[in-house]
Every structure is written in C-alpha cells, then in structure tokens.
C-alpha cells in the first residue's frame, strides 16, 4: 500500500506539507520569530513589513509568529484528540468484536445511543458542563467520536476474525492477546489510517470553532480559531488579520482531506 501511495503525487505533496507544518510547530521556539505574546500597543494593526511579515494584531503582536506558535494548539491538540479517540474506540471495538456475546451487545447499544445524538449538541453539552477550556474541548471531542471508531473497528474485527488464518490460530490454541495484536490489528490498521486522516480535518475544524467562540483555548494563547475571533473585531481596519489564520486552517484541513482520499484510493483494490 505504501508503494501505491508514494506513486500518487498529490498524496506525497500533502504528506510533505503536513510534515513541514508540524515541524514548524515543534520548532516554533527555536526559530527566530518575534515573541508571540509580546504586547506592543503602539504597533497595533500594522501592515506587513520586514519586522512583522504578516503585520500585527490588535494588541501589536506579530501575526506570523502567532500563526506559527498557533500550530501547536491547533494541530497537536487535534492529534492528541484523534489518538485518544482511536485508542479508546479501538480498545472497545477490538474487545467487543473479539469476545462477542453479552459484552458486544451492551457495548453496541451504548454506541448506538452515543451515535444517534447530534454531535454539535453533545459538544455544547459537554463543554457546557465542564466549562470553557482547552482540555475540556479535547475531552468533548473524544467523547463524541469514540463510538464511531468503536463501531468501525468492531465490524472490521468481525470481518477479519472470520478469515482463515485467525480461525486456524484459535484452533491451534494461541492466546487471545496474541491473535488480537498479531493478526487482527494490522488488517484493521490500514482502514483506521484512512478514517483517521479524513477525520483529522473535522477535528481541527471543531477545535478551532470552539476556540473561535471562546469556549476552547483561552487568551492569550495563540490558536488559529482564537486569532480569528480577535480579528473579527478589527475587520474593517485590518482585513489581513482575518485572512491569514483562515487560509492556514483551510490549507491544513485540505491537506489532511486530500491525504485521506489518496489513502482510501490506495487501499481500494478496485483502483489497482
């Protein structure tokens, strides 16, 4: 599968782009950028210049610097959310699919209830209960999506579980954990990867939306959604402030979406 993926030029471009962005986020502190939190009211809302390549926001902070520093909350929080969601969903899905019986039924009922609730309402409900804050937003997202992954993994497990080599393992007496990790997981992993990359975009949009509303990341942390929230108040005087974070979100989400599409095509035997 990896070979097919590498042949797809757009996929390679997307992966390269995402890697560059993430590296920039990780190295934000070491790269020579202006201090993202340094307030300089005299320099507020300046047009792009050599000192401030993307201008300044309403508190005189360097927009480029805030953009780069904002990679961490926006993207890494989303990654954290995804990993936890997948871990939780997979664990439950694997166990449920492998053991079947009563456990499976109960778990599926719970998943059904969780999935039937409109996700936006659930997010608001959870954030409403826990209050605004970064980790609360992450928790809300995990709570909503785990059921979906749980379901997917469970049906994959059931499908793969009926394949010959797994039955053979069971018959020859190998222990359950071995079967689960050695046989089931790799087969399921590739499907997971496709779902995850397609979902990543959704999570990024969700987290930035909540930050935009003031429910997620709190000031003065730089985060793209929060930056847009601040930019909307100065829309008339400095429209650039409104464009920059939005374009950033759009390109990163688009990259993940395209990657997910390419992964899905690479996995699909019909397009060989």
């Amino acid at each position, binding site marked *: 599968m990896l070979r097919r993926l590498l042949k797809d030029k757009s996929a390679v471009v997307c992966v390269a782009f995402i890697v560059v962005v993430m590296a920039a986020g990780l190295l934000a502190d070491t790269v020579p950028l202006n201090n993202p939190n340094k307030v300089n009211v005299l320099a507020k809302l300046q047009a792009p210049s050599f000192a401030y390549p993307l201008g300044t926001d309403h508190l005189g902070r360097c927009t480029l610097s805030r953009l780069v520093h904002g990679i961490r909350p926006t993207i890494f929080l989303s990654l954290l959310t995804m990993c936890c969601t997948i871990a939780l969903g997979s664990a439950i899905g694997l166990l449920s699919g492998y053991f079947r019986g009563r456990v499976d039924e109960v778990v599926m009922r719970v998943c059904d*209830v969780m999935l039937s609730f409109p996700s936006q309402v659930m997010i*608001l409900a959870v954030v409403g209960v826990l209050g605004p804050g970064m980790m609360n937003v992450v928790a809300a997202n995990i709570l909503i999506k785990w059921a979906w992954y749980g379901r997917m993994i469970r049906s994959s497990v059931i499908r793969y579980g009926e394949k010959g080599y797994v039955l053979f393992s069971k018959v020859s007496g190998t222990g359950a954990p071995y079967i689960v990790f050695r046989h089931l997981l790799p087969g399921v992993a590739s499907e997971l990867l496709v779902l995850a990359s397609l979902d990543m975009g959704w999570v990024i949009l969700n987290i930035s939306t909540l930050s935009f509303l003031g429910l997620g990341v709190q000031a003065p942390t730089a985060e793209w959604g929060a930056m847009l929230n601040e930019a909307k108040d100065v829309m008339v005087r400095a429209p650039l402030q409104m464009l920059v974070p939005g374009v950033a979100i759009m*390109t990163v989400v688009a990259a993940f979406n395209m990657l997910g599409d390419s992964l899905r095509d690479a996995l699909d035997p019909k397009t060989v």
Partner: protein
Amino acid sequence: MLFPMLLGISFIAFVLVNLIPADPAEVALRINDIQPTEEAIALMREELGLDRPFFTRYLQWLSKSTRFDFGATFTNANRTVAGEIARSLPATLELSAAALVIVIGSSLLLGVSCALYRDTLFDRSVRLFVFLGTAMPNYWVGLLLMWFFALKLDLLPTSGGGGWKNLILPAVTLSLTYISTYIRLIRNNMIENMSEEYVLYANARGLKQRTVVFGHVLRNSLHSCVTALGMSVPQLIAGAFVVENVFAWPGIGRLCISAIFNRDYPVIQAYILVMGVLFIFCNLAVDILHCFMDPRLRRSS
C-alpha cells in the same frame, strides 16, 4: 423504540448537568450578584429543589418538562427557560429553513450539471470549490462574506435578526458546509445511476435525453440523497450556533452559548432536551419519507 430514546436523552441531559462540579445554588447566586453566604446558599438550594434526592429531582424535572415548564433561568429570575427557548427557537428554525432551501436548490442545480457535463472545466471547477469548501471553517466564510457584502459593498446589514436582508448572509454561510457534501453526493449518485441498465433501455426506447435524465436518473438519485438530507436537518439546526454567533442572529444556539458562559444550567439542560427531541422527530420523518418514496419498501412498512 421512540419512547425509550426520548427517555434516554432526557436522562442524559439531566445527568450531564448534575455532574457539574460547581454547586448550582452558589452559581445561581453569583450570577445575580448576590453574596453567597451560607444561609443564602441554603435558601437557594431549597428554592431550586436541590436538597431532594436525585431521582425525585429527575422525575420532577421530567414531568415539568412535558408541560414545558423548565423553571426560571439563573441569569434572570424573571425570565423562564421555556420563555427564552420559545423566543429563540423560531429564529433558529427560520435560519435553518432558509439554509435548507439554499442547499437543496444549489446542490440540485450544480450536482446535476456536474454529472451531465462530467469532467469538463465546469465540473472540475465545481469539484475544486467543493473540496475547498469542506476544508474552510464556516465561521470564517461567514466573516469573509460579512466583510465583502456588508462592509465593502454595503449591500446588507452585518448582524441582528429581522427581515430577509438580515437572513441572507447567515443562511448562505450555514448552507455552504452542506452544499459541498450534497453536490458531491448528487453528482456521484447520478453518475452511478447513468450506467444502470434502465437508462440503456430508456435510450433504446427512444426517449428524449431530458426525460431520461430528469425522469429516471434524477428520481433514482434523489432517493438516497433525501435520506442523507433528512439526517442533516437536525445537524443543520444544531450547527447553526456558530453562524448565529458570527451574525448575532437571535437563535437558540446563541442562547446556549451565552448560557454556557453564564453557567446558566437550566437553559443548557433544556437546550439538550429540545434538540434531542427535535432530532428524534426528524429521523422519524425521514423514515416515513423514505418508505413513501421507494415503492419497494412500501409493502413492509
């Protein structure tokens, strides 16, 4: 099936709010700028009925809810939650309805055109637009539209509820997310259906291209789209809160957001319940519509 779900949702709503670490009585006092002394808290607890056991409170809340009595809001003891919701729900429904009309209209038009003129420049540009559209945060689009149409061109008002002029920008913004999905859905469905055998037979009988496309292909394609659309209606209504916030549209989403900031728990609770109920009824309506549209399902319904 329906009733237990309703019960389940109400239970979840109640449980969630009661999981709050903060003491609701204290919060209620603070919001109204009353000093939370020991006595005041005790009085408030009694007033809110918080001193009674969990299930009693749940049943009481549930029975009151069926009579649409959600109690008073924390922020202003003079206003009832029911009243607030009654005031703001129609605005959200109006916005959602307008967005739905735009979604249906544009996605039908563009989806069908793309399927008919497959792989032309038009098709490819629309697909690019769709792809970018799903990657753009909708509040950002709202801001851009606001900046362009309201501020630059000064054609429309920037915010507030009211007449159709105020409705346009928020409705267009809200519809954008869903348009992308539906254009793609309709286009793919139509392309798939065009290679079905009944299309070959229709052509073999000498039917006009227009009849084949609209009478046969489109009708079959719409089938699955209607189901998907129906499922999105509650999502549309629920997701309106962002757009309402950007354009200061006085809807139920905006109400909930301010309730979250104000820690106004009765409002949040009622919001969850109302949205949950709405969701279930929408699903029911879709199921019925689905049966109605497909003669193959009518026997079993």
